[in-house]
């Protein structure tokens, strides 16, 4: 009797699985399914984006309106709390679901190139963009940028004491009051790699050691740095311009400085877009890339809450734009094409060890 009951129980899940599966296989939104192919013919592009959804979504909507091509956006989560889209892209490499990867920084795009996930695409829309920020083999092309800045709490740091250099995070006046995100993840990892290029290995290591000596705190993300500095838990922190802009727009008592304007300069972090090799909607992917690289998109991103800095010098900045243009900045001198290699070299060795030993 129990065996017959078991048989009955077994029949239910398989019937349910079959029913749900069959119903989805005919769904037009089922990616990779036959339905998906029909969609691709009628205009779909799948975009994986590590750019914050709140900034990427309006651009995608505008693209849909302008071209009639539907965008299926897969945004990334806050970088350190999940394994993220780069892993997903690598795992899906043999039969990708994505057509385009829109990265918030060039390092992730360069990693995809090294893993054979991206394909070269020379976009005519890239004319006017400074090519020193992009891959020489056209696997990824950079456009609108953010910058790494020092955010400080105006209630805790008077104007005459505000930091001017990243070395101020190791200064005695901010002992135990400085913070940064985990340098193994996100844009902080890119910053670390850039510092190794700009300062040299020994100086960079000394800098990180000085942070430990001064009691700088590692937090989980740049958003966390912004939040904790804004609410006064920490006086200063290293974060990105878009984070700072959100805090400013919310009326938080924060200010920011471009670090090392008289020294190594400020790290500029452009967006990078890459065409996924073998993506299901290759032509639409190229159209999306072309759209992103237009001057109009750079202007739209400058107007957005992210307040991204256009790389083109001829894009007019909106009134009240809180940041300098890239041309006005003293940018840190780094080789963007090799940053991923530098990061790979230091991630598993020095940075991992530094994070492990950090109190």
């Amino acid at each position, binding site marked *: *009797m*129990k*065996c017959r*009951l*078991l048989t009955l*129980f*077994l029949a*239910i*899940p398989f019937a*349910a*699985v079959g029913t*749900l*599966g*069959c119903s*989805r*296989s005919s769904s037009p*939104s*089922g*990616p*990779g*399914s*036959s339905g*998906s192919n029909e969609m691709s013919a009628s205009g779909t592009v*799948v975009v994986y984006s590590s750019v*914050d*959804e*709140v900034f990427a979504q309006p651009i995608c909507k505008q693209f849909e309106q302008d071209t009639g091509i539907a965008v299926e956006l*897969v945004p*990334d*989560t*806050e*970088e350190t*709390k*999940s*394994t993220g889209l*780069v*892993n997903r892209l690598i*795992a899906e*490499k*043999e*039969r*990708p*679901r994505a057509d385009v990867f829109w990265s918030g920084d060039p390092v992730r795009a360069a*990693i995809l190139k090294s893993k054979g996930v991206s394909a070269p695409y020379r976009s005519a829309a890239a004319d006017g963009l400074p090519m020193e920020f992009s891959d020489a083999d056209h696997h990824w092309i950079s456009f609108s940028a953010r910058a790494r800045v020092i955010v400080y709490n105006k209630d805790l740091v008077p104007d005459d004491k505000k930091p001017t250099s990243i070395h101020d995070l190791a200064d005695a006046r901010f002992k135990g009051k400085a913070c940064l995100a*985990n340098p*193994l*993840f996100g844009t902080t*990892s890119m910053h670390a790699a850039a510092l190794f290029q700009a300062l040299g290995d020994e100086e960079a290591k000394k800098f990180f050691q000085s942070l430990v000596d001064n009691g700088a*705190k590692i937090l989980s993300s*740049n*958003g966390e740095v912004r*939040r904790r500095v804004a*609410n006064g*838990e920490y006086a200063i922190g290293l974060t990105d311009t878009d984070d700072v802009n*959100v805090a400013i727009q*919310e009326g938080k008592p924060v200010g920011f400085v471009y670090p090392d304007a008289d020294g190594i300069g400020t790290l500029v972090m452009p967006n990078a877009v890459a065409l996924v090799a073998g993506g299901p909607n290759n032509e639409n992917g190229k159209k999306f890339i072309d759209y992103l690289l237009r001057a109009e998109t750079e202007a739209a991103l400058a107007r957005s809450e*992210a307040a991204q800095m256009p790389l083109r010098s001829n894009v007019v900045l909106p009134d009240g734009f809180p940041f300098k243009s890239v041309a006005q900045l003293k940018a840190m001198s780094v080789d963007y094409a090799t940053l991923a290699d530098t990061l790979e070299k230091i991630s*598993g060795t020095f940075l991992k*060890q530094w994070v*492990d030993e950090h109190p």
Partner: protein
Amino acid sequence: MGHGAKRILRWVLVGAVLCVAIGPSLPLVVSTLGQESPRPVWTDAFSRSVQTTLWLGVGVSVVSLLIGLPLGLLAALYRFPARWPLVLFQALPLLLPSFLLCIGWSNLAAVTWTSWLPAPDGLAGCVFVMGLQMVPLPFFATWAACHNLTASQIDASRLHGGDKSVLRLSARACAPVAIVAALLAGTLSLSDPGAPLIFGCRSMAIEILTSFSALFDYDLAGRQCLLLAGWVLLLTAPVLLVGLRWLAAAVLARQTRPAVPYPHRALSRIALAGVLLVLFVGIVVPTFGLCLPAAQNPMIGRAAAKVGDTASTTLIFTGGAALVAVLFAATVALAASESSRARLTSLAVLFALLAMPPALAAIGVSRVATHSPQHLDWLTRSPLTVALILGLRFLPVATISMMRAVASLSPSWTDAARVHGVAAPRLFVRVILPNLGSAITVSLLLVTVLAAADITTTHLLQPPGAQSLPVAIFTVMANSPEGLVASLCLLYLLCVVLLLAAASQIPRLWPRRVA
């Protein structure tokens, strides 16, 4: 069919379900075993993280047990105002991903008028926040176990030694289930990197996350996952062995008349105060901290649009996961009902799987899908995939509940049905199903809420264009206005409360037809 053949069939069924459960994790594990990783697994940092992780698991288990067991007993045995809704709302902390609760606590610590509150930090902070979050597991396990005690047992113990005796004997009867649930809670906390990241606690989950996300070293991550699973197996197997023996003893007494909650003047008040206190500290305080920005800059309209966009997908993912988990759990529970060795094997394997980081299975499935023919996309790249993997991940939760329920089925019912020639479907619908009803309801509810809070699996597997609400919150929280994130969290909580209210009506559909 002979006795030996039936025994083999049962083992085959248990083995088949366990293989399905292990399947998604295998691709990465197999590739790990086949290759030499250039990085050593057992470093000083990893060794320290193992130690921290063990303390974390033990701490979360102990905290959740110490609160969940007595509270579950009091809530099950004594009558107090608004008892049923308050009991249901105890599930709320499980609904939020732990990092949201952490941010809530962190926000509160920064507000001037709440700065007297101790700010959770380090290992203690993780144990505090995650322990409170996991209280519902031993609480509901105790609650369910208590409802299997008979009215005559309760009356007899009350006559013997008053309510002190009732509590002591009930605690003894419910402890095995509560301990297993607390172990489950501790195991669940091991692979969650959210709280350890925010409170600066270097657990194994952080090491594995680093290997996956910063080093992109799948082989290293795979080995670390195997080590984590090994530790879990080593530590939980002895407890499970003892726990299952207790379980077997606890179900010997047959229920003839369900116990009715007793209106005791003092203990009812204590029960009410207890559930309110746990609700207040476990969910109200951190949620208040999380939603503070909504008061300054509410964005309810924008948040409501997001909820509307994601509602159906969320329901498909989580409801599907609950269905998958319950169906497989019922299969395991029925197949293993006559063998304690089969039960132990099933639970040990499922516990080890539960300790694995969700990314292991999710990336494994992605790898399989990428090499699979397109006509299998309905299985490997669809909403069904997300539901299936989430359901398999939380299979242990449903399995424990179903095993307990199946153990309480009387063999005489099936014997009587056989003697009278009652068909199996009729016996199933008229007798078995009503008696499994409450366990099915509890399992569905628990797996639904746990699956909703599992961001990693959903995020890595969700088809383009399909986004669940928790993942939507997770993706916008980095740089969206805090008012929007807070409004989303508020609406999410509201949805959950409505879900719980609806769930409270389900038992009416499952009356116990067999006395």
